[in-house]
């Protein structure tokens, strides 16, 4: 199996006259934590939807987890995980019901589901809460649970869309430790965030401005290149030049 898990070439998406994503090209290696940054309206969500097999590019090509984004969207959906702050779990179902539902959607066998569910509950220390409705869990637990569920089928790559909003700094770090651990076990992480300190947790970071990727490198190299102390400074230097608003 190749060690490049995401590969896109000149990926472009137009809506009428508006070019939301403009010829972006990059590769992501297995086990990398890849930060996908950009101001609101820069084209991140549109790009991410194409990578997840939810929307087709206007032109260009791409490959995710070994499948072509133009023709094999359904296969991609089965081989990736996805978590966003806005939607991940069903609030009106219990912890166990959510686990079983998503395991079923990802096509895990009954035996495999039981095994993975036990592991997951143990790891999160949620065994005593398995029959609790998800809506009554604290936000930090919900986020850890949705991340675990998004990776229940051992996907090649997991997409995290602003996963950590609103939680305290201790919980946020526990969450990033889970991300590190998952990446260490060979799952590729593709993450968007508005927290610039989190950008520094990433192996490499890309910054989108006006639909294009304007910078892509390790946080250390980016800071050097832009003569900046923090990723926040790098981001602001680039995003201030944006021509289009949200």
């Amino acid at each position, binding site marked *: 199996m190749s060690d490049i898990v995401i590969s896109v070439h000149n990926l472009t998406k137009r809506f009428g006259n508006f070019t939301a994503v403009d010829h972006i090209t990059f590769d992501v290696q297995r086990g990398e934590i890849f930060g996908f940054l*950009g*101001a*609101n*309206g820069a084209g991140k969500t549109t790009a991410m939807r194409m990578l997840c097999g939810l929307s087709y590019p206007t032109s260009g090509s791409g490959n995710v987890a070994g499948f072509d984004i133009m023709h094999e969207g359904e296969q991609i959906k089965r081989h990736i995980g996805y978590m966003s702050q806005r939607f991940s779990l069903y609030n009106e179902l219990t912890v166990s019901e959510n686990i079983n539902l998503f395991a079923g959607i990802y096509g895990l066998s009954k035996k495999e589901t039981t095994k993975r569910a036990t592991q997951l509950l143990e790891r999160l220390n949620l065994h005593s809460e398995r029959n609790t409705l998800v809506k009554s869990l*604290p*936000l*930090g637990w919900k986020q850890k649970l949705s991340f675990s569920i998004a990776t229940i089928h051992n996907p090649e790559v997991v997409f995290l869309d*602003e996963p950590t*909003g*609103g*939680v*305290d*700094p*201790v*919980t946020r*770090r526990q969450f*990033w*430790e889970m991300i*590190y*651990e998952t*990446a*260490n076990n060979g799952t590729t992480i593709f993450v968007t965030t*508005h*927290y*610039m*300190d*989190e950008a*520094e*947790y990433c192996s490499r970071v890309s910054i989108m401005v006006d639909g294009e990727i304007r910078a892509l490198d390790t*946080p*250390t190299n980016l800071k050097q290149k832009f003569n900046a102390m923090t*990723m*926040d400074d790098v*981001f*602001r230097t680039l*995003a*201030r030049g*944006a021509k289009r*608003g*949200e």
Partner: protein
Amino acid sequence: MYAVEINSLSKSFGKTKALDSVTFAVERGELFGLIGPDGAGKTTLFRLLTTLLNPDNGSATIDGFDIVKDYHTIRSRVGYMPGRFSLYPDLTVEENLNFFAALFGVTVEESYDLIAPIYSHIEPFRTRRAGKLSGGMKQKLALSCALIHRPSVLFLDEPTTGVDAVSRCEFWDMLSELKTKGITILASTPYMDEASRCDRIALCDKGHILDINTPQDIVNKYDSNLYAINADNMFNLLEASRKATGVIECYPFGESHHLVTNEEFDLNHYKEELGDFKNLTITPTAPTIEDMFIKLMKR
């Protein structure tokens, strides 16, 4: 007289103590930040101070007026921008602004000088429905509406949540400008990096205030030794460092991990213990608000 004075204020919802005997005061003209995660009690406190809720216990005053007894007077003196967009999506930008002016018995013209630095950004879209604005523009309209009656105290509940780093910075610039006009501002945020934009901050968690001070004095009180560490395998470094001698804790912090140590810690001994790690570096580092918050939370 303080602009805001809070005395042992408590509020519960069922069994949840949203706010547990909170006491502090805000000076006139201060830009005061409430910093804490979801569930800290920030929104409950704002709803109490803007007279939208009554406390279970304790008391508070705004410009000397009691939040229970004088709620009517307070309502015309405070401006409130809730965390959720609460304008009328089917009214245009201009209609929303006129509506709020009419509610408070003022005209847009009277307050134009105050809102101009903010409103001028969205004025070109004044005939657009509020529901059709982008996130950043909605935020500017909501702030304009909250300012239309020239409030004495302005409450902003998580105004920058979900907003990108550039727009967040611009928003804080606007607040600094409002401060120069004598408006007292209380703003809440989950972003620790915004603390430095405030005159004073209260760090809050689970209905309690952990500490109140200027951002600089809060970090000055940090009393452990703190190092930034790096190595090739950052995940394993975390686990191994936690087991090392003299380490209180170790947690991810941007591109490094932060290592909090006690008097048993010895630099050379630590390097020996972690001898297997390639490219290990360890350097003393200055604590940030976030390091302090982590320390206070664990207490």
